[in-house]
């Protein structure tokens, strides 16, 4: 599917470039450097009251979970940004044209399986998928990659095997269900998706004069930009994790349908890294294996943190359509796989 790039926001500012004196330092105006310089001492001076305000047990555990999520995800995000910058700057578009089948219907499963080579969690796959689209990979294939990579790579599958020592079929089920859902989403996008829904990443803004400048510009932009959305998602997830009572889970486990839906929603809300989610769900023994499989399939594909990051990379219009569809497909795919395999 050829996609015509919607006018990215990049060129507009570029035409402003030559405006004389706009970047000149004459005149005092409030910019972000100044804001940061002023913010830092204020926070340092006010740290006593800030700490006291945060001293309640709820706030403390909120902060710990929040900081933990960000600290844990930042390395993966930064390396994802590094990899996506390398793709965007050093890999020519012709490479992907050769590596992927020309027919989109075939490119989708190939890209889905290729997700297995990105050993990391979902934070890394968002910027990489963005770079792939920017490099001319058909969006349907890039989206299949985006969805499959965090779930079917060897690191995650090994963790799943360790977490479910008595149910080795869980690993196979997770692999198959995730691949199935990723491909189904890719094919659906190919049939139903409209180019306008996808606000392409804006590679134009990294068109610095030298490769190095473009490369580091891309790393900086992706890290800062996706990082902001990561923080947003981590705040939401920490809030729900701290505030939601765990006891209601138990009542849901008895009803088969309710159990599946509960764990699917829980996967979205908790936003746990795909390398760790198997351990968390393994201990939810009152729930059926199919319900737990749903948690493992839904979590890496769509959760609060990912939604925020997808909205940041591909646009809010995209995320609002893509997220519910992914959720529905992931639940259906895991119930199907779970019924057959588990």
């Amino acid at each position: 599917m050829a996609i015509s790039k919607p006018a990215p926001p990049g060129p507009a500012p570029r035409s402003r470039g030559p405006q004389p004196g706009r970047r000149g330092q004459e005149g005092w105006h409030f910019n972000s450097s100044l804001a940061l310089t002023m913010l830092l001492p204020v926070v340092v001076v006010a740290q006593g009251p800030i700490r006291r305000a945060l001293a309640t047990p709820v706030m403390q555990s909120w902060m710990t979970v929040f900081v933990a999520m960000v600290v844990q995800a930042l390395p993966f995000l930064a390396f994802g940004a590094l990899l996506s910058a390398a793709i965007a700057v050093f890999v020519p578009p012709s490479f992907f044209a050769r590596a992927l089948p020309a027919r989109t219907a075939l490119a989708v499963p190939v890209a889905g399986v290729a997700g297995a080579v990105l050993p990391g969690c979902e934070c890394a796959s968002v910027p990489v998928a963005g770079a792939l689209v920017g490099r001319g990979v058909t969006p349907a294939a890039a989206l299949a990659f985006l969805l499959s990579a965090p779930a079917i790579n060897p690191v995650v599958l090994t963790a799943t095997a360790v977490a479910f020592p008595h149910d080795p079929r869980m690993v196979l089920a997770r692999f198959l269900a995730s691949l199935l859902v990723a491909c189904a989403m890719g094919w659906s996008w190919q049939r139903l998706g409209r180019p306008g829904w996808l606000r392409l990443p804006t590679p134009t803004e990294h068109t610095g004069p030298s490769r190095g400048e473009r490369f580091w510009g891309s790393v900086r932009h992706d890290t800062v930009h996706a990082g902001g959305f990561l923080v947003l998602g981590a705040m939401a997830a920490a809030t729900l994790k701290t505030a939601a009572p765990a006891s209601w889970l138990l009542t849901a486990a008895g009803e088969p349908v309710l159990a599946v839906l509960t764990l699917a929603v829980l996967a979205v809300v908790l936003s746990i890294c795909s390398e760790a989610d198997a351990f968390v769900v393994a201990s939810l023994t009152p729930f059926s294996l199919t319900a737990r499989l749903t948690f493992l399939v839904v979590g890496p594909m769509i959760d609060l943190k990912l939604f925020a990051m997808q909205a940041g990379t591909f646009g809010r219009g995209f995320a609002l359509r893509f997220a519910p569809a992914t959720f529905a497909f992931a639940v259906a795919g895991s119930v199907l796989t779970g019924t057959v395999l588990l």
Partner: protein
Amino acid sequence: MNRQTQAAVLLLIGVALLHGALSDLYLRYVKEGLRPLLLAAGTLLVVTALATAWYEWRRARREERGTGTGTGTGTGTGDGDGTGDGDGTGDGDGDGTGDGDGTRGHAHRESRVSWLLVLPLFALVLVAPPALGSYSATHTGTALQQPYGYAELPAGDPVPIGLVDYAGRAFYGHGRSLEGRSVRLTGFVAVTPSGTPYLVRMALNCCAADAQPVKIGLTGNIPPVLQPNAWLEVTGRYTARRTRDPVNDGPIPFLRVTAARPVPTPRDPYDETWNN
């Protein structure tokens, strides 16, 4: 947020990550195995910040020269990789992330979300919240799972043993591997609303967001005053008494305490045995 500010924020976050990974601060939030990744990521962020600053400086210099001559031909020869055309008028490139002057709605909105990055920075550097404690322990169900097997206890009396290890042996092994032995374990105190004192260790797989408590009940000679979150080293023996966690109906074995003494928070407050 303009590029200089982004560079400054990245530099601060990178330094904070390095600081956290070089001290033991990171162990409050993530597993020990992530340390090399944190060090590498911190370095990467610092390098990105420095590279951004360096290219900004060069851009500014190019602008000076470029606007001076008007044509600016050849000013880019210093790029060295042959792609630079040295077009002095290209200085506006890359403004897409916004200069923070609010004239471009889209770019401005994008840059605003980046400001959120200062929150974890402040949280990490100024507050450095403690590892999860009794609040999470009492609000989350115990995560005790059946162990693969029970290795022979090491020599020693009392024998030092992990709290999670003891809980598994006591509940699923019915204390058979603990027979006749006195054990010593470390954990923090959590008191349920009903008043039962628990000794807890949070078991962690990746980061504190997935940490789950493993609880054992204390009975016998327990200290008269138990402060929630206080770390205790208790010595005791297996007892057949057991209960169910009201939160998730999970298994909670008991320990008959013979002695208890307060200890400082261990270097790694979490139990990471499940990672192996």
